[in-house]
């Protein structure tokens, strides 16, 4: 089946089998390998991407369902080679160890901070509770999200005063 999907702002057309999962299309066909697979049961969130701005598990969506929609992966977070504040914050606060969960974590963070620019620790823990991390114990991920939130807020304030 022919589909047209905007992937990281780039219009992308393909002919895919209806059964092909979005995550496999992204990883194996488009070679966007930042999005990972960590489970069989929609449990881990390593595959999280944004579809029309909403974070979802791309292992539980067919590629054909994304037809006509906009998909954003970690590869689309940085703009013009400039790290997104979320990316910078994860490094700064040691929010990752093996890095396998990190793309998913950053994508939910991106969606969270769109809706809530000043989340509490509880808000953050709740928002990332569909994503499993086996390494960090989450505490530094929470810190990373807090730092990113502050950064983004400051940037927005700068932008409005400027």
């Amino acid at each position, binding site marked *: 089946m022919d589909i047209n999907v905007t992937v990281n702002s780039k219009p992308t057309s393909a002919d895919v089998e209806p059964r092909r999962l979005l995550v496999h299309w992204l990883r194996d066909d488009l070679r966007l390998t930042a999005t990972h*697979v960590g489970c069989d049961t929609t449990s881990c969130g390593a595959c999280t991407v944004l579809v029309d701005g909403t974070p979802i598990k791309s292992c539980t969506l067919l590629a054909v369902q994304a037809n006509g929609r906009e998909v954003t992966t970690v*590869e689309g977070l940085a703009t013009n080679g400039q790290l997104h504040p979320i990316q910078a914050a994860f490094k700064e606060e*040691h929010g990752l160890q093996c890095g396998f969960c990190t793309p998913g974590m950053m994508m939910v963070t991106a969606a969270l901070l769109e809706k809530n620019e000043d989340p509490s620790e509880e808000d953050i823990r709740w928002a990332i509770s569909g994503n499993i991390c086996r390494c960090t*114990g989450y505490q530094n991920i929470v810190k990373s999200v807090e730092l990113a939130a502050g950064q983004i807020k400051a940037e927005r304030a700068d932008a409005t005063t400027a």
Partner: protein
Amino acid sequence: MSTTESHVHGIGQSIKRKEDDRFIRGKGTYVDDISLPGMLHMAILRSPLAHAKLVSIDTTAAAALDGVVAVITGADLAAHNLAWMPTLSGDTQAVFVTDKVRFQGQEVAAVVAESAYVAYDALDLIEVEYDPLDVIVDPRKALEAGAPLIRDEKEDQTDNRCYHWESGDKGATDAAFAKAAVVVSLDTHYPRCHPAPLETCGIVADVNPATGKATLHLTSQAPHAHRTLFAIVAGLPEQNIQIKTPDIGGGFGNKVPIYPGYVAATAASLLIGRPVKWIESRSENLISTGFARDFHMSGDLALDNDGKMLALRVKLVSDNGAFFADAQPTKFRAGLFHIVTGSYDMPVAHIEADGAYTNKAPGGVAYRCSFRVTEASYLIERLVQNAAYELGTDPAALRFKNFIKPEQFPYKSATGFEYDSGDYPRALELALEQLGYNQLRQEQKKLREEGKLLGIGIASFTEVVGAGKSKEYDIAGLKMFDSAELRVHPTGKAILKIGVQTQGQGHETTFAQIVASELGIPSEDVVVQYGDTDNVPYGLGTYASRSTPVAGAATAVIARKLREKGRTLAAHLLEVSEEDLEWETDHFSVKGAPDKKVSIQDVAFAAYTNMPDGMEPGLEGVHYYDPPNMTYPFGSYLVAVEVDEGTGEWKVRRMVAVDDCGVRINPMIVEGQIHGGLTEGYAIAAMQLIDFDEEGNCIGGNFTDYLIPTAWETPHFETHETVTPSPHHPIGAKGVGESATVGSPAAYVNAVVDAVRHLGVTNIDMPVTSAKVWQAIQDAKT
């Protein structure tokens, strides 16, 4: 050695991790990210039964499916002498079933196809006929006379015992028990769990038919050991095998063994002449690859009336599954379990262990643990709490009374360990103070009067990490040393090549920091390489927290050796004698004339451009470090929980952790390791469980049943430190990757039991589910 802030960004500084730059951009390369031209995909058919004769396999329909390149069965592997492989514990394990199935999920056949989708389509078309046999899932029953024999293919195996092992002094221990005023006993099961790194295991096997070279991109925590074993299993010349570990998405012990899938994919690539990828599904990971723990332990602790510990006796039965595949030192069949006397001055002890074959997956890996130290630490810390209840004393006070005192180090334990250094009272004091222990005890009393349940649990663990020394410790015959090769380039930049492997611990950063501190080259100028056996020196790999203690030491030693060569070069450059030189951070200067100096970069340049006559050019070297002893990290963990009496639900209110891992190379990274470990400790205590029903069906074969805590359940940790350097380690570091997983489960369980003990509850086995808490309360009431 200085641990202060310095421009070389060495030991003691929380510099940001180098590896993060690729990960945050999504540019890490994990094994499943590798795609080679012409690559095929392999999927494995697994047995639905736990114990059954293999009657027949029909692969005709599968082989005929469009896109299928090959179907491989046990018989095919047997034709190439590949149906069985050695385990890390000297046993053999079936690669694919040829005679009978011995656990549910065992590998029966594989399909190699043009795409993974087609490979799975073809699996559905393979027809297998089984003849079911009686299943044994309880190791204690497996050891009974007349139990169905699981390893009937082993010539001298007449029962299901896979080892018997003892440690300590039985006579002296029995004598001490005979005189004891108080004996406290605990029967407990440390349940089977699984490391479950977020990335499963996988391989891209690329055997080049033209050159015969086998390049294996492999999720391996021990690339060199795997290379050697591959050479032995597959009969390939070792110089033609290259193991390359890509970025690894967590290991925790899961990626230490060699798995049938690796062997099958390699065989497939060899036979077909194209690269073959095999990526395990999550359920394959949980049902077939290295599990951890599964120890049934009976502990007796003897004390006198004053609460002084006299002796410890442990009997344990380990469930080793269908093949004895523990990844642990050969000499010690129950790992380092004999560290079970823990942090206490225990005059005598005796341990008796029996291993049993059962119809379960093999494994026994050191899951964030130094070879069974976790089980040991759990048992002693649970026993101590129950002893305090029995004696009517405070659990903290009982610990203080029995701790090995700071002045007793180095301390020789009853089972033969030589503890290197420690200050146990200081760590517990700090933890109690941070928690506000006394106030909390008062609050507990008050709440109890109101019918509310609060519990406080303590665990004061001692770990033992950093195996060897090589005289005592080997894995599958390979001595447990490790290595580092340091190459300083003419411009003063360096490459460090290490034999250990990172799976998220940040080696690219911390090992560069060691070089920075020892040799003065800023850590950002040091590239750390690992995980390519063609490129780095031989090493035994990363598990059991051995990277820093062993390879870290090797790094420090080789850096020091190069520095000494640098001294000769500096003397030559400054035209003074070596004795007149002083080393400071990153340069040599003339004693008394600090302005007369040459930097390490000048020295490096001279090593290639201006060496003294007769000196061997270059500034490079390799060191193999054979540790004189292991290191003994320790700490005290305190947990406060609230328990809902009506439903058994419990929640962590506070978690205070004091860790002492000696010198901290990068405090930020150390703290991250501790957070991760504390979380896994919580996970094991609260929810992680691989269970089996009577038919040997695995319950816990997916993340819907094998529960991993999310950020929502995971407690907020309050971490603190003391620093007691290791006296025998070149930089005084001890290793920290596992302490928190080793030490914390007992703290969580002790806390829950403490909340309900006045109701009559003395034990709840892990995982401490709300249902079990509720049940324990009901049972105590009746």
